[in-house]
């Protein structure tokens, strides 16, 4: 499965963490300012053609302490941020979202789309001097594919693996049972050093806290819950990264991180919508810092349990969508920096069909649909019921997720006006997932934050992917959607594939297995001295070299900031 598949799983974890840090939750001004046209936001490229300055330290922020630095067991954003500087991937994305060589210098796909031949770079070495070999790759892929390893992101990516074996001193071959259009994206994947992990318990290996680097930096120290220090890896085989040191400080709270940025104790931090709005008028901020904002492939939705007696009927699901004022959410909660979506893709993705309009906010039509579906308020108590069952549900939200809680409370109020009683329950991430996977819920706030460009709707919407097999937490089932998704996965021609996905988009909008809410932006603030930023739909960190290409300029980035209003593209 693609990393978009992380969305339900690891990615929603990203949602938890950033929500824990209360991304996007802050809105100071009493009246919402007119929303600038979102299209004005562009992407940055400060690396192409620029000359980096070498030396110095960049002080970065983590929202949480990493639970592990095992590249295969990673599941949280904070882990990805650190591992991204320690472990190179086989392949990487460039800023146009094309796959480019990483540890692998070249690769070929067989004509049936089932077999991949990778050739590793001769110069690639681990920091202890051992070369990165096909043995490492074979070991890593076998480990990731084995169910016992429980690799949260990479495990599902290698389902359907038929064989993996070395093919000479620098090459290895991976063969799958089925061809799959988006298979290549699975190889945006770091490797484990086989000589250290062989025969060890993956979850308990000491290397998980003292990882062996094959990337530009190496871990110097790690103070639990506080900080990590990375220094340049002297044995790194690629181009020298500009910064000599990278420090990560664990700062769970956005407000603290922002204050530290202004005091010069941090060089970068994620910010929320409210803070972003404030940066435009805060002279303290303008003097030292700049804000970066760009649309990502992330989108949020409210999963409806299609198996529950409440949401088995598509009319009820459509009605629920029409009772949520998504326009007001975009204006009020996201301050205009979001786009209402009509299907399970971000508008930045070619799979999104801009010709499919979102269902309107229309309580009158919703009431009619509910009535048609048999839910009516016969006893006049303001609560709809059907066959003796009151329409009273619980909406789950991961705890600490401010924006999620706000959306869900708004939905609860909207449903309430439509004669549906909805209580909001916040649950810690694991408890939340357990409920979702067992189907023991009615509605739940989820987000998809894609770490790659794979738009494959299979993992979230194909009926074969009901938990525990997959991530179709809505338990949706639509034979036509299934057929189109299957066809798209086999279709190796991009144009034809997108046509199929556009039909899936339209069908899911009408069938409303979930309430699709909005596509959002990544918002980040930097000290002006930090240069070399590159943004794309994968954000600041999803492309190579990303932060490994940043440097400190003696001439700080000049005003006006490329913040809200559009990055210099």
């Amino acid at each position: 499965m693609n990393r978009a598949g992380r969305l339900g799983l690891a990615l929603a974890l990203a949602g938890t963490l950033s929500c824990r840090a209360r991304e996007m939750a802050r809105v100071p001004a009493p009246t919402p300012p007119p929303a600038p046209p979102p299209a004005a936001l562009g992407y940055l490229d400060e690396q192409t053609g620029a000359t980096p300055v070498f030396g110095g330290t960049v002080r970065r922020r983590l929202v949480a302490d990493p639970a592990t630095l095992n590249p295969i067991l990673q599941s949280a954003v904070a882990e990805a941020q650190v591992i991204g500087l320690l472990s190179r991937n086989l392949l990487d994305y460039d800023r146009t979202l094309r796959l480019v060589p990483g540890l692998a210098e070249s690769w070929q796909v067989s004509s049936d789309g089932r077999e991949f031949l990778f050739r590793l770079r001769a110069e690639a070495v681990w920091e202890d001097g051992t070369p990165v070999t096909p043995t490492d790759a074979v070991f890593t892929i076998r480990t990731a594919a084995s169910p016992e390893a429980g690799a949260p992101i990479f495990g599902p990516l290698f389902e359907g693996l038929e064989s993996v074996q070395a093919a000479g001193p620098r090459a290895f071959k991976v063969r799958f049972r089925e061809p799959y259009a988006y298979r290549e994206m699975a190889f945006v994947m770091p490797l484990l050093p086989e000589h250290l992990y062989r025969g060890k318990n993956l979850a308990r290996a000491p290397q998980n806290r003292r990882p062996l680097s094959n990337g530009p930096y190496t871990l110097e120290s790690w103070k639990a819950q506080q900080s990590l220090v990375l220094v340049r890896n002297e044995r790194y085989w690629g181009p020298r990264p500009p910064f000599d040191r990278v420090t990560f400080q664990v700062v769970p709270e956005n407000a603290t991180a922002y204050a530290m940025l202004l005091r010069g104790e941090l060089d970068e931090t994620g910010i929320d919508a409210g803070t972003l709005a404030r940066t435009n008028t805060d002279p303290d901020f303008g003097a030292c810092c700049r804000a970066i904002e760009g649309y990502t492939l992330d989108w949020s939705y409210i999963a409806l349990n299609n198996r529950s007696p409440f949401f088995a009927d598509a009319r009820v699901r459509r009605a629920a969508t029409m009772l949520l004022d998504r326009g007001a959410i975009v204006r009020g909660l996201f301050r205009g920096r979001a786009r209402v979506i009509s299907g399970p893709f971000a508008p930045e993705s070619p799979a999104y069909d801009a010709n499919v309009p979102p269902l309107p906010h229309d309580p009158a039509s919703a009431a009619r649909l509910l009535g048609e579906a048999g839910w009516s308020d016969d006893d006049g108590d303001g609560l709809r019921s059907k066959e003796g069952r009151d329409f009273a549900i619980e909406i789950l939200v991961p705890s600490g997720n401010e924006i999620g809680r706000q959306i869900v409370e708004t939905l609860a109020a909207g449903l309430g006006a439509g004669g549906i009683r909805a209580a909001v329950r916040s649950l810690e991430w694991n408890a939340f997932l357990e409920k979702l996977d067992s189907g023991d819920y009615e509605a739940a706030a989820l987000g998809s934050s894609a770490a790659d460009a794979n738009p494959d709707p299979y993992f979230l919407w194909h009926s074969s992917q009901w938990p525990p097999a997959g991530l179709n937490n809505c338990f949706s089932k639509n034979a036509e959607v299934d057929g189109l998704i299957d066809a798209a996965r086999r279709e190796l021609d991009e144009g034809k594939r997108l046509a199929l996905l556009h039909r899936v988009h339209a069908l899911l909008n009408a069938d409303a297995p979930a309430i699709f809410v909005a596509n959002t932006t990544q918002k980040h603030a930097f000290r002006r001295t930090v240069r070399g930023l590159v943004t794309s739909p994968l954000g600041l960190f999803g492309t190579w070299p990303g932060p490994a290409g940043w440097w400190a300029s003696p001439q700080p980035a000049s005003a006006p900031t490329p913040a809200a209003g559009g990055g210099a593209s």
Partner: protein
Amino acid sequence: MSAARRLWKSLPVSGRVGLLVVVALWLAAAISPFFAERAAEIRLDERLLPPSGAHPFGTDDLGRDLLARVIVATPISLAIGVTAALVSLFIGFLIGGSAGYFGKAADLLLSRLIEVVLCFPVLFLLLALAAFLPPTPVSVVLAIGLTTWPGDARYARAEILKFRDLDWARAAKVAGATPARILWRHMLPNALPPLIVSAAFGVAWSILAEAALSFLGVGLSPPAVSWGGILSAAPAFIEEAWWMALFPGLALFATVASYNALAEGLRVATTEKGGA
């Protein structure tokens, strides 16, 4: 009427103030249904408005009127406080009373039990219970009652010990009354004044405990409104909306302080009467 007057007279000034505030709170609770609609109404274009004539306490992060929400939360907080205190008192009297009444091995055993529970940080137990039970008001009441009874049990044990050897208690025993009957029909009424004091303190404590749980996100779930629940959204907006922290907290503080003052007043009143 005259009993009420006697009570009023016997209370110190602080206790009288406490009593007045408590009565006012219950009145607010009685009229709170009139504010329910406004408290639930989300207006995303009126988020985080500072206090003004239209919104005396300002609005919250979803544009709901904070004054209405604080008022609507009153009956919930009060009801949970009172019922949890009663549950605690019931368990406490049962265990402490039995310890005092039966003495010997039972006392030794039950006193150990009281000591064991007292050894745990209350919030540790409370969080564990609240987090593992479904987030309903009943669970919250149970969690608080199940963790706070040892205080009441100590009170009850001491009181019952005082009566055990008194003539009327011996007489009842000789007359063949069962221990349960003696405890409930004879000893409870006699032990009531100090237990009422204990319960009044317990109400203050339980309201605080519920607020802490809801503040930490393991208490009541929205749309149920409690002061702690309203406060739980405040830290995220501490930079721009101080009113979200100030007003619900003020209501909570006033309630806890007035119950404490009332309890303290009752304690003074009952001990002085007892001494006279």
